[in-house]
Every structure is written in C-alpha cells, then in structure tokens.
C-alpha cells in the first residue's frame, strides 16, 4: 500500500534520532510504502526527518518569505478574487460557514492550473477583496473593525497558511498524492490541507492522528500573539473552519487520548469514525527503577512555569514535612518562564523547607529522575499530553497527580488523583503513600503494567495496520475516469458490495462516512 505521511516538520523528530512517532510507525509497517510530505519553516535550516525506510521525502517551505512567482492574468484574477472572497466570507460571516470547503478547493484548483496562488494572495487585489468582505455588514467584528494594518497582517498570515494549496504534490504520478492509496495526516492544522485537496481531486481517503490538538494549541498560542483582535479573530476562525472541515472529511480520526477526543468531537469529529490510539513509547522496554532512596523522597517533574504549578507542590511539601521531617523533595525541570526559578526558591525559603528541597534541573534521563524518588508527583493545572505521566508510570514508582486533562485516563486506578490547587489534598495523598511502603509498591507495579499495556509501540502499529486495511478496502484503488472501461479486479469486492457503481469522485464523499460507521464500530 502506498501511504503519504503528511506532517508539519518539527525539531524533535530529528533530535530524538529515531524519527519519532512517524519513524516508529514506518519501522513497524515495512509491508507498506511510505512517503513523507513535510511542511517546514522557510527561514530556518530544515532538520532531517530521521525516519528510515521512506520511499521519498517531499518538503515545502512555509512560514516565512513568500516564494517568487507571477500573479494570475487579468482574466483569471476575477476567478481567484471570487474564490478568495468566498473563503473570507466563510471566515467572518457566522451564517456562511458552509462555504469554507468549496472555496478552499476552488482556490486549490485555480492555483494548480497556473501556480499563481501565492502571488495573488499577497497582491493588492487580495487585500482589497479581504477588506471589502471583512467590513461588510453581517461580518463578525464585535471586537472592532479591521484597520489597514490588520488587513495587511491577516492577508500575509492567510497566504502563509494557504501555501500547501499550491504545493507541487498533487497529480497521479509516483510522487503525487493522487498516486497514494491513502494519506495519513500526523498532527492536523495546515498539514491537513494537502490531504483535503488530494481527497477532493483524487478521492484519496485520509486518517488524522493528533496528540495534543493543533486547534487548541492555536487558541492558547494566539492569546499572547502580537496581533490585534480582528486579526486574531480571523485567523482563529480560519483554524477552526479548517479543523472542522478536516474532521468532517477524514475517514478515521485517531486522537491520542479521551481528553483529545472530547475536543475533536466538539469540533465536529464523528464518534463513529474516531478511534483512540495511545501514543506508543519505546520506554516500555526499560527495566523498572531500582531500589528506593533511603530518605522518603518526592520527585516532581515538569517545566518550571505557573501552568505546572510547582508552587502547589512546595506548599503541599511544607505540610508533608511537618508530619514527616525526614521527607525530601526533588524538582526536575528547566525554567520556562523567566525568573520563575528564583520565585520558587523564594517560596521554599519562606516556607522554611529550603534545606529539604532541591531544584535539580534537567535530569540525565527520565529514568534516573524517577529512580531518585519514592513517589512521583505531578501538580500541573493542565495535563494535555500523557507522555510524561506514562514515562513516570513505567518506572514502577507510585504516582500522585492533580486530576486535570489526561491524568484520570492515563493513571486510572493505579495512582492517586487530587483536585488541582489544593495543597491539603496533595499533601495528604503524598503522606499516605510515603508512609505506606506496601501500598506504594503495589500502586507502582500496577501503574507500570498499565502503562506497558497502553503505551507500547506494538498496539499503535497494529491499530494502524487495521485502520489502513479497513480504509483501503472501502475506497477504490484509484479513481475511475469517466469514459474508461472498468478493469476487472481493479477494485476490492467491498467496493462493489457497498454499491460503489457511481463515479467515485463523488462516491467517497457521501458514502464513506455512512459505510464507515458500522464497520468501524465493529472494529472498535
């Protein structure tokens, strides 16, 4: 099977040396042909993907200076402007949301014909169209009318976001997305744009895997972005529409946790097409942590920032220390908010626990960090990723965590959950574990077994093996062109059984979700 992996290239893929999540998937499924399509920042050196066994890597620079190129001819400009106006209208007018998808595909089609899309999007014509629609009555400008500077900034950002529409990746050649049997979007956002277009043009189905939702990160990131309200509103509306369209069109959604699934469902992801696939980690093969330290020690891990709430940990530890004077606390992690380490040190001093608290920075390895304590504590206000929790559980140490985000589903009954912002509850949970060796080791072992079962690599690979086969069996191997004769055995039997005699260009669009529902429910 030919599978196109679409992703926004990130740095840690390379830093981890083994190709990260995509690398593990490609390693685990050697029977398929993978091609990697990456969106990269234009103004930074591209890290190597680090994924071995690929049949090709295609890269497209995004976020930065626009690549050169001529604008459309005067005749075609009107078609461009019309499609762009439709797109903007869908972004700013609450009642016109349905126009987003068609406008997007129209722009992609136009851009594919003459490759003038980026130049058009940064031209004065596009600025005027954007301004006209944005200032029309009915547009949602509750937070203020857009000014000229807003129009310019928003047009620039939209141009950057829409750059994948004019990627040279479409077509049915060996390197084109049309030649793939399915697309696998790893991580949502603009990386889903090529998959959407390939689905529209060539009928290629796609799977979306998200661990930590792109849309949620945009909402969080834009709060501190240096843009005015109208620009934020327009761009976030773009990301929301894009995400909704992606979830609507995706054949299968595979969020990494129940917590992410709720968000996806909120944004239009159908429950019947969703299957939670936990993020696999190679740390499951690591041996359990060795002997506990002599003194009862709490280990806290995470970035030193207000969101991780080390202050709560310090306050709780002061209470623990009052009951158990031999207790010690180690905080691992680097400062993410400037000056926060000094702030925490000052709090420790004020609470009179400075001699028992150690700020240990980044550990040599996470295993070493867990081994240095008797109990691992997470006091964060929000846990969006189960990665660190799972790593701690794999050490075989008992875990205490605040009950936010993914903590409940990751820990289950194998750890103690306490409400956030409650030093008393956290201290009680820590004391309960520190003073009860039998309970500590029982919970630790249970946690290790649970994490080994949930976060191993093999279930991930197995899940995607099934998902790929299931998907391809429901879609034609390649789209039939009108006028060509049907070739025997070009399509799987399931295609005919499901009544796939209508032209497949439109067939997958309507039929697939309905056909997918029961089949997937069974698979689940």
């Amino acid at each position: 099977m030919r599978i196109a992996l679409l992703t926004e290239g990130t740095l840690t893929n390379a830093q981890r040396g083994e190709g990260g999540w995509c690398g593990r998937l490609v390693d685990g499924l050697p029977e398929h042909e993978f091609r990697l399509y990456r969106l990269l920042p234009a103004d930074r050196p591209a890290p190597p993907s680090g994924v071995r066994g690929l049949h090709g890597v295609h890269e497209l620079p995004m976020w930065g200076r626009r690549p050169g190129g001529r604008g459309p001819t005067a005749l075609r400009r009107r078609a461009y402007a019309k499609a762009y106006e439709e797109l903007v209208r869908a972004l700013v007018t609450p009642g016109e949301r349905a126009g987003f998808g068609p406008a997007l595909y129209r722009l992609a089609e136009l851009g594919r014909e003459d490759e003038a899309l980026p130049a058009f999007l940064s031209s004065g014509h596009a600025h005027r169209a954007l301004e006209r629609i944005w200032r029309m009555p009915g547009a949602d400008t509750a937070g203020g009318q857009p000014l000229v500077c807003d129009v310019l900034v928003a047009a620039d950002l939209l141009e950057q976001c829409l750059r994948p529409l004019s990627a040279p990746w479409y077509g049915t050649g060996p390197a084109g997305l049309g030649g793939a049997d399915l697309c696998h979007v790893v991580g949502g956002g603009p990386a889903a744009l090529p998959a959407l277009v390939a689905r529209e043009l060539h009928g290629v189905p796609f799977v979306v895997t998200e661990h930590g939702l792109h849309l949620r990160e945009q909402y969080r990131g834009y709060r501190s972005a240096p843009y005015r309200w109208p620009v934020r509103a327009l761009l976030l509306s773009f990301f929301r529409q894009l995400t909704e369209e992606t979830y609507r069109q995706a054949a299968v959604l595979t969020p990494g946790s129940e917590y992410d699934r709720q968000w996806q469902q909120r944004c239009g992801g159908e429950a019947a097409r969703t299957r939670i696939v936990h993020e696999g980690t190679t740390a499951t093969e690591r041996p359990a942590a060795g002997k506990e330290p002599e003194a009862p020690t709490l280990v806290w891990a995470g970035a030193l920032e207000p969101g991780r709430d080390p202050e709560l940990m310090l306050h709780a530890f002061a209470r623990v220390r009052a009951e158990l004077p031999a207790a010690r606390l180690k905080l691992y992690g680097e400062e993410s908010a400037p000056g926060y380490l000094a702030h925490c040190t000052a709090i420790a001093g004020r609470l009179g626990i400075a001699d028992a608290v150690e700020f240990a920075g980044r550990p040599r390895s996470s295993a070493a960090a867990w081994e240095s304590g008797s109990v691992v504590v997470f006091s964060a206000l929000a846990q969006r990723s189960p990665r660190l929790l799972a790593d701690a559980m794999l050490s075989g140490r008992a875990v205490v965590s605040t009950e936010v985000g993914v903590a409940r589903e990751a820990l289950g009954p194998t750890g103690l959950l306490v409400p956030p912002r409650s030093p008393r509850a956290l201290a009680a949970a820590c004391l309960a574990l520190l003073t009860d060796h039998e309970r500590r080791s029982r919970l630790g072992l249970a946690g290790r077994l649970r994490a080994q079962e949930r976060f191993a690599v093999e279930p991930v690979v197995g899940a995607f093996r099934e998902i790929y086969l299931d998907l391809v069996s429901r879609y034609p191997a390649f789209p039939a062109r009108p006028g060509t004769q049907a070739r025997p055995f070009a399509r799987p039997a399931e295609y005919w059984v499901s009544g796939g005699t209508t032209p497949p260009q439109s067939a997958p669009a309507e039929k697939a979700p309905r056909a997918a529902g029961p089949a997937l429910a069974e698979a689940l």
Partner: protein
Amino acid sequence: MTSAPADPVRELLDSNRALCEQAVDPLEIAAALEDSGLATDGADRYRHADVFGLAEELYARVPRRPPTREPLPPAAPLRTLPLAALRTATAHLLPLLPAATLGGLPGGTLAVLLGAGAGVLTGRRPDGAVGGVPDGEAGGAPDGAVDGWGAEQREPAPAPARRTVPWAALGQGAGTGLLLALLAAAAPRAALAAALGAATAGWAAAWLRRFGQRQGGAATLGEYRSRLRFALPLAVLAQLAALAGTGWAVAGGTPATGWAALLLLGTLPLLATAARDAGRPTAAAAAVLTAATGAALLALPGPAHWLGASPTGGLSAAALGPALLLAGTTWPPSTGPGAYR
C-alpha cells in the same frame, strides 16, 4: 455548611472577565479555563456537563470588548532617517572619488565598479515580513516541541537569507557610478553637489517609508491611499529644493544645463529608492541604467560633436526621460500600503 450561590457562574465570570471580553470564540475560553485547572468535575460545580458548555455560557453572557488601546504595528524608529541619509551619501561619494581624482577611462571604470559595490552593500535592508503563526506547546504533532522538562522552545537560529546576486542593486549602483563619473568629467562641482544631495534623497526616502508605515491605523485602504497620495510628490519637491540649496552653496556659476543635470541626478536616487520599496527594483535599475547608457553614448566624441551640445546638456537629456518614466511608474504603487512593509 453554606448553600451554593444562586448563580455560580457569576463568580467565575467576574474572575475571568478580561478573558471573556477578549475571546474570539467559546473554544478559546474553554482552552483558557482548562489551562487554569478547571476540569470536567470543575464544570459540574457550575451546573454544566463539560467545560465547553460552561465556556459557551461565559461567551454569551459577556459582551465582546477588545483591549481599548491595542498597539499598532511599529514604524521604523526616527534614528533610521539620518542613517539612511549617511548610507546614500556614502554610496554616491564613493564612486565620485576616483572619477574626480583619476578622471578619464580608468576613473570612470573604477567609479562604475565602486558604484556597483556600494549599491549592493547599501541596497540591502531588513525584510519586513510578518512572522509566522505562533506555535503552541505541542504544535499538534505527536512529537511536538515538548518533552515536558521545560525550556523546550530551543529553536535553531534563522538561517541566513539565501545569497542570490542582487542584480537590481548591482545595476542601479553601476548606473549611478557611471552617471556621476560623466557629470564629474563635465562639471565637477555639480557632481559633488549631486552626490551630497543624495544624503537628502536618502533622508526623504526613509521619511516616506516611515510615514507610510505610520499610516497603518487608517480605517480603509482608500483612506490610506488618500493620505499617501501626495507624499511622493512632496518628497520630490523637497528634494529639488534641497538640491537647489546645495547647488547654490557648492556649485555656484554652473550653466543651466549643469543645473538640470544636477537636479535630475540628485532626484534619481530618491525615485529609485521609492521604486525599490514599492516592490519594483527592476524598474529602478532599468531607469538608472538607461539614463547612464544614454548619457555615455551622447558623451562619445561622435554624437556630441554632431549635435554640438554641451556634455551636461547631453547628460540631462539622457536622464530626463528615464527619470520621468520612473516617477510615473512609482507614484501609483507608492500610495499603496504594500510599499511600506
């Protein structure tokens, strides 16, 4: 035990009022509430099934009110004006030096080479592209830029811009060098005045750019255009006045054709910089090169002899057409906001 308040959401609303007023979408409030430690059981307390329902209620109950004084994008600081003046003056005085001291063909060649070099060095200015979309913590990718230990936003330094040959700046610089060498051969004092006048041209071009950047607060593109409509003509007029002053001080007693050449050569840098800012570097280079080539052809012994014109007259005649054409092509784009990014 106290009973629950009648309207528990009210409390939450008061503590998150700024967030709710500035939110663009209920999901933004939901994300922020989750960040502040509110989970599903927290939403129960406010009689909602989940955080999303609670966020929708908050979004509906608070009217949108963005921060009253949102900052406009910053314009170039005032100190860039004298710097730009200094840079342009240097780029014009440098080729004048060999032309005036050596003279003849070697001086002219050296002037062209120095002009091209100075054009490349001074023609580059920082690119004002808008930054990318802010990246959240995990960026959505499974192996996002987070491993949970903090300080994970270690991004590599931006790569140096790819070195391509800046043909337009090269051509413009070479043309300027040739024009100055020709003027220096005919009227050295006028050439000096023109080179000194380039300082005010640089100043005027930088002022024009700054003025354009400061008009970002205009409500519509039409209003922006009307504010910028007379900026370039005013800058040209001011430059002509400054050139007249410089010429009177430095090159008194120059014939009329010399004055014309001085004014034209002194205004060309302003027009060329404005054209380059407006995204037409090729037009700028073409105009300067056409003027220089025409002037060089007219300065050859043959044509000048046949026409019986003075050298400065030929120079003015060759530069007039390109200068006017350049002004004509630069004015319309210079009123648009795209020229001042």
